[in-house]
């Protein structure tokens, strides 16, 4: 199954390379195709996470109110979900599923790239790693490779910085440290992998960043406004707990 998937990806990459005549361009086109396939899914999960953020205070209130009664809590939360037609397109599984796709692409670029695959005049060989090029042709030949490794780190850090804006204040410094450490690890990892992998990752991240800055944030604001309007204009909820109806005592005759 795994081998089959890798074979499929490398065949597709080969076709694109034949079609456009350049391996580097083919990697970028494949990246864009994969990103485009993921966009509708992302859009839906965006909408639900905007809803989630607007409804969060209300849900917390319910959780506190019925903390000792999980059944009632569940019912009340269900009520909110149905009122707002809350259909969360998202979840942890889709995120986890994306990882094998990344690893498959990684192993395609590492093992199935011909040695003469080049990216126009920029990279003579996409199958070569940064450390290798630096060792064989010195800094003069390797500086573009090194630049791409640095970009690899920078493009890891930027989405995290963008994410931090949606976060609680107290956590920010911690997250920043972790983001920098992770970017450093990525650069260390990128040092010894074929530069084709870096090209893929940089193209993919750049796409993601553009998407986040120009589309995601604006859509998020729009969805949030819609949801807030819905909450504000909705009928006022009054929680009435009805007493059990008792049968009327019969009149004594």
């Amino acid at each position: 199954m795994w081998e089959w998937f890798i074979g499929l990806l490398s065949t597709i990459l080969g076709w694109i390379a034949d079609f456009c005549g350049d391996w580097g361009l083919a990697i970028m086109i494949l990246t864009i195709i994969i990103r485009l396939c993921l966009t509708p899914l992302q859009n839906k999960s965006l909408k639900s996470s905007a809803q989630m953020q607007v409804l969060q205070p209300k849900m917390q209130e319910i959780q506190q109110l019925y903390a000792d009664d999980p059944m009632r809590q569940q019912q009340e939360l269900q009520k909110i979900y149905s009122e707002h037609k809350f259909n969360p397109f998202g979840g942890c599984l889709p995120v986890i599923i994306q990882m094998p796709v990344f690893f498959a692409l990684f192993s395609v670029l590492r093992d199935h790239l011909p040695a003469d695959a080049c990216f126009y005049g920029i990279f003579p060989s996409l199958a070569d790693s940064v450390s290798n090029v630096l060792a064989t042709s010195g800094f003069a030949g390797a500086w573009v490779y090194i630049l791409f490794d640095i970009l690899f780190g920078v493009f890891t850090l930027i989405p995290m910085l963008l994410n931090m804006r949606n976060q609680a204040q107290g956590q920010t410094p911690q997250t920043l440290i972790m983001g920098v450490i992770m970017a450093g690890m990525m650069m260390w990892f990128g040092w010894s992998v074929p530069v084709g992998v870096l090209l893929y990752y940089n193209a993919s991240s750049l796409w993601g960043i553009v998407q986040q800055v120009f589309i995601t944030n604006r859509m998020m604001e729009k969805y949030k406004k819609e949801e807030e309007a819905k909450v504000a204009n909705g009928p006022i909820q009054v929680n009435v707990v009805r007493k059990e109806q008792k049968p009327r005592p019969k009149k004594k005759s």
Partner: protein
Amino acid sequence: MSGDGKGAARSLGARALLKIFQGYQRWVSPLFPPCCIYRPTCSQYAIEAVAKYGALKGGWLAVKRICRCHPFHQGGYDPVP
């Protein structure tokens, strides 16, 4: 109850898993947008499940939970049994 989960006598595996999940929550999770459709979240669920049932059964419960956490489920409040 086999006794590998509850109380102070947690197995090495359970303790290692708890540390990993807590590390994920503290360090890794804040870097990415929130995606979980359940409360408690999948990682919190995993911590509670492993603490209560031990590495094997708790881990299995967590795996089942993650497999439920996708667009075609309703989500919502779903505590560890």
